[in-house]
């Protein structure tokens, strides 16, 4: 059964984001804590590079919060690499205990949901949600070698090289940004098999989670400053809004998408927009938290979307299952 989880006392302590060169050339450049121009992050392989990226982001978040690794009860982390290799490398330096999760590009909202449950349920005092993606590691695993000469279809998305970390803590009455409610996504498969159009597979899941949440909570889109999806890009955002309109929900004035925000889609040649676990994570952990802390955004829904395919399932022509997890964030 779909249900809304109501969280109490889940406060956002700090966010940290590290991004690569291309992301650093995008519109959110000034918001990232660090822009790293070495795509290898000083490592020998793309897989290790992503691990290092995630590790540095986690350390940075601890440093910004003036904490050491023992002060955080759980690190909940994920990425796109096989068996979440980057996370197991990335959490090494900063986790006293670790939960690895996989939700493709929806991993950050999934991590925030599980983190909020742990804090709200009284099982942890501080939890870090941490995800990453790396363009080169993702290309190697899901598509072609980097130097292979192939054209990308217009519906394809560009995997973001970035990582975002958010430390949540048990907070009582202090002012700040709180995670107030959440909803776990339903896996939805609508027959889309094209791995170059993953956002078409994710759009129905995003529509479902948003519309179900609004229906069950009795809220309307106007009650929010922003309904932020993660990585639907141009294609998926259009489809999602059209599907919502069919159900009588107009999201046009209030919706934006992390995959559209992180790049200048006209200038940066990313076709439909950005994607990857690190995309919405780095956008929310930097730009969105800054906007909330400065009061420009007061109440938002963050709905990261994931395309649950593997390199093998894509080769077998299996339809892609989409998922979207939601968290409600509020300034108090």
């Amino acid at each position: 059964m779909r249900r809304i989880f109501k969280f109490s006392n889940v406060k956002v302590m700090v966010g940290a984001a590290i991004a690569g060169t291309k992301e650093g050339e995008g519109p959110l450049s000034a918001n990232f804590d660090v822009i790293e121009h070495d795509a290898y992050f000083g490592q020998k392989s793309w897989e290790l590079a992503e691990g290092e990226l995630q590790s540095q982001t986690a350390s940075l978040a601890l440093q910004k919060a003036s904490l050491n690794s023992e002060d955080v009860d759980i690190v909940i982390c994920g990425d796109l690499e096989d068996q979440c290799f980057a996370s197991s490398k990335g959490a090494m330096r900063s986790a006293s205990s670790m939960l690895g999760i996989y939700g493709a590009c929806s991993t950050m909202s999934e991590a925030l949901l599980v983190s909020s449950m742990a804090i709200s349920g009284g099982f942890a005092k501080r939890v870090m949600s941490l995800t990453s993606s790396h363009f080169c590691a993702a290309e190697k695993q899901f598509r072609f070698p980097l130097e292979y000469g192939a054209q990308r279809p217009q519906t394809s998305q560009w995997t973001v090289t970035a990582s975002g970390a958010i430390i949540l803590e048990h907070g009582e009455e202090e002012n700040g940004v709180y995670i107030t409610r959440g909803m776990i996504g339903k896996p939805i498969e609508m027959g889309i098999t094209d791995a170059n159009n993953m956002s078409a597979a994710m759009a129905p899941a995003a529509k479902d989670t948003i519309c179900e949440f609004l229906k069950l909570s009795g809220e309307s889109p106007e009650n929010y400053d922003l309904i932020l999806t993660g990585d639907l890009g141009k294609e998926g955002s259009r489809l999602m809004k059209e599907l919502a309109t069919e159900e009588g929900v107009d999201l046009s004035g209030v919706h934006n998408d992390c995959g559209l925000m992180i790049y200048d889609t006209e200038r940066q040649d990313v076709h439909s927009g950005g994607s990857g676990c690190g995309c919405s994570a780095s956008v929310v952990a930097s730009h969105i938290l800054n906007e909330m802390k400065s009061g420009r955004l007061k109440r938002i829904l963050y709905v990261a979307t994931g395309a649950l395919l593997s390199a093998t399932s894509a080769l077998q022509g299996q339809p892609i299952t989409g998922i979207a997890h939601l968290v409600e964030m509020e300034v108090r």
Partner: protein
Amino acid sequence: MDKNEYKKYAKKTAAKSPVLKDCVIAFLVGGGICCIGQAFSSLYSYVGLGDDTVTTFVPITMIFLGGLFTVLGLYEKLAKYAGAGTIIPITGFANSIVSPAIEYKTEGLILGVGAKMFVIAGPVIVYGTLASVIYGLIYYFFGGAV
């Protein structure tokens, strides 16, 4: 919208590649690569190499250039605009072998470079060989009669 309708709708309304522009660029670049090959052929004939040697040296030269431009990171940049124009000529074949060799260097010389080198070109070799066998059989049985 049910599943079938959605699938069709998503496909129908998806952003399309500029096919005409892609074809024109593919034609020009692919043609350009072939002209370079022809120039080498003429050059080798001019310096006095025999026909057999020329037909061996031209592919060797073009494969070398395809590999070189892949390593320099330029082939992929050209291919982004040229598409089939850079895939079809023999330089594209070189690119499809050299690019995984670079990518899988980190997995070692045996299971990385050695095993993965043909991950893209493998099917071309397999089905190219198969097609040549079929052609050979047809030629063997009916070649004399034609």
